[in-house]
């Protein structure tokens, strides 16, 4: 590639200087046809000759040997491979030509892409914050608190019959509340000024994500369907079918799930179609197809782990996922995901968030809880159990964490193998994390033995939105400055004690 670029660079520089091929060839001590072959990338150019040519063209050898361009080509190829853009096949192999012939335009394209990507990250991070992050809630709460204090102090002042000292005291309170109210309002104004707010879900998988959230990950018609199926006297139950032979490497749990999914497809097509078609969160055929696949898996889960017995067992075993795996013959991830669907009004299980990530931090499934935002576009706080679980695959790790908002949650996570081990390949691990609010900790086995007053670890949500200033795990700068609410309160307590 370097040689190819070198030829093009020589030609570009020669033309820039207004030299003919014959001129340059003569000065470099080669024939004009040979130079023509070099410039056309049909002959390699040796180091000594390149040195002579670069001297004639009055440039550094480094400028001709293509190192910088190689980096440009790699960057453009990476850009072209981005699934958000056109078919990568349409641009395959063209990056070298583009860089060789039009380095300025290539830089411009990359510059535009970087600017676009920066803007996109900012918009997505702010969208995450708008949707889930406690920033707005905190600030609105702060404004209401200041307004309360202000109105109460103003009432006292207006009531009269105050000593001079009292007048000064409440006058000072009014002034300090006005200052704080203004500061909060300015912070909010800056927040709204800093980015475009309307962000649409762009990809089919993002549509499905929105669809599942909108339905609160609970589908009553599918639950009823699974129940009817299991109670029907004539059912040809998946338990009677031999393990599938077309996936002999899969674990028995995966094979059972595949069989249950096959049953789900057979009995559920009408119900699934009714749920998916016309759903406002699923505007495209691709998104509906993906959503169908997701809720067939849901139905398969409901067949293998029927709602009432599963809820009863979950309560009895205090949400011990391993105990549920043994009882229902399912995998850790299947049981964990099913726990997050126990949201039937009037018969709810413990409120559980669910998040699944691969080793690179790509979030592949998420179900947040009120007060516990789970990032959609970026990696979460690196202190979260979902990442430490990768350090001990197969073993559940737990963490009692306090978010910057002051809300506390119990997290428990385990990294599980997603495919059989293969020589020469890394293990394919996914980390499955669940979380419950502090007031539910006593109901789950994972909270046993924790001293809730001492065990809380300060964690964040995502770096760019986290306001903990002294965090040694920070990877990115925060978008909006200011201490976390929980830290602020700690400081305030320290000042008043």
């Amino acid at each position, binding site marked *: 590639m370097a040689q190819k670029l070198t030829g093009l660079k020589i030609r570009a520089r020669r033309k820039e200087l207004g030299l003919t091929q014959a001129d340059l060839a003569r000065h470099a001590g080669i024939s004009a046809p040979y130079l023509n072959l070099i410039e056309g990338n049909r002959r390699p150019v040796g180091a000594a000759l390149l040195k002579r040519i670069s001297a004639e063209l009055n440039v550094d050898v480094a400028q001709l040997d293509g190192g910088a361009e190689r980096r440009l080509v790699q960057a453009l190829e990476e850009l072209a491979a981005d699934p958000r853009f056109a078919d990568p096949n349409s641009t395959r192999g063209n990056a070298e030509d583009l860089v060789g012939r039009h380095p300025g335009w290539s830089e411009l394209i990359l510059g535009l892409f970087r600017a676009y990507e920066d803007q996109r990250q900012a918009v997505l991070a702010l969208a995450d914050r708008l949707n889930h992050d406690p920033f707005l809630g905190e600030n609105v*709460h702060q404004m*209401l*608190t200041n*307004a*309360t*204090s*202000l*109105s*109460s*102090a103003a*009432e*006292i002042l207006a009531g009269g019959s105050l000593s001079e000292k*009292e007048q000064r*005291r*409440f006058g000072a*309170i009014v002034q*300090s*509340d006005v200052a704080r109210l203004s500061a909060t309002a300015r912070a909010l104004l800056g927040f709204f000024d800093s980015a475009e707010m309307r962000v649409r879900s762009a990809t089919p998988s993002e549509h499905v994500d929105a669809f599942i959230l909108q339905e609160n990950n609970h589908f009553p018609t599918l639950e009823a369907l699974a129940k009817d199926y299991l109670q029907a006297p004539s059912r040809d139950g998946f338990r009677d079918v031999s393990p599938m032979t077309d996936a002999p490497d899969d674990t028995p749990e995966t094979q059972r799930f595949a069989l249950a999914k096959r049953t789900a497809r057979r009995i559920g097509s009408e119900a699934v179609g009714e749920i998916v078609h016309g759903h406002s969160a699923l505007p495209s055929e691709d998104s509906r197809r993906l959503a169908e696949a997701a809720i067939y898996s849901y139905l398969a889960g409901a067949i293998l782990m029927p709602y009432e017995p599963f809820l009863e067992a979950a309560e009895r075993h205090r949400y011990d996922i391993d105990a549920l795996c043994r009882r229902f013959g399912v995998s850790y991830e299947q049981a964990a995901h099913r726990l997050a669907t126990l949201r039937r009004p009037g018969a709810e299980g413990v409120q559980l968030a669910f998040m699944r990530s691969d080793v690179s931090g790509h979030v592949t499934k998420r179900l947040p809880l009120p007060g516990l935002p789970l990032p959609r576009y970026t990696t979460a706080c690196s202190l979260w159990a979902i990442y430490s679980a990768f350090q001990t695959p197969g073993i559940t790790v737990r963490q009692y964490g*306090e978010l910057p908002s*002051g809300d*506390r949650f119990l997290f428990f996570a385990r990294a599980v193998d997603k495919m059989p081990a293969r020589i020469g390949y890394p293990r394919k691990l996914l980390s499955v994390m669940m979380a419950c609010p*502090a*007031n539910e900790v006593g109901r789950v086995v994972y909270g046993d033995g924790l001293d809730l*007053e001492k065990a809380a670890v300060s964690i964040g949500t995502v770096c760019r939105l986290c306001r903990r200033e002294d965090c040694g795990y920070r990877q990115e700068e925060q978008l909006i400055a200011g201490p976390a*609410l*929980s830290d602020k*309160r*700690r400081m*305030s*307590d320290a000042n*008043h004690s």
Partner: protein
Amino acid sequence: MSSNRILVVEDEPNIVESLRFILERVNYDVESVSNGLTALEQMRKQAFSAVVLDIMLPGMNGLDVLRTMREDSRLSKLPVIVLTAKGQAQDRKAAEETGANAFITKPYSNAEVVKQVEKFARR
């Protein structure tokens, strides 16, 4: 348990100061704390005639404090006036179900706070 003492559980110092002033003016003694755990400690140490309790507290929130109180035979009858910036019906319902005697939405009028304290406090 009867006394003139009111416990204010609120983490915003300016609000505490105003509440202290308006309640002292109608002859209550006011004790204040800024978090839920200290509040429970104080309630177990001293007799209060009522508690004015903010919901949004650091760490243990006001509803958890209230729940703990209602499960503790010594505190289960102590009147609690809840203050909150969240004024939606479900927030009011949650507070009432947990055992709040009164529910006041911020910003409030001082007269309303005094009225509710007078109504429930056991002098």
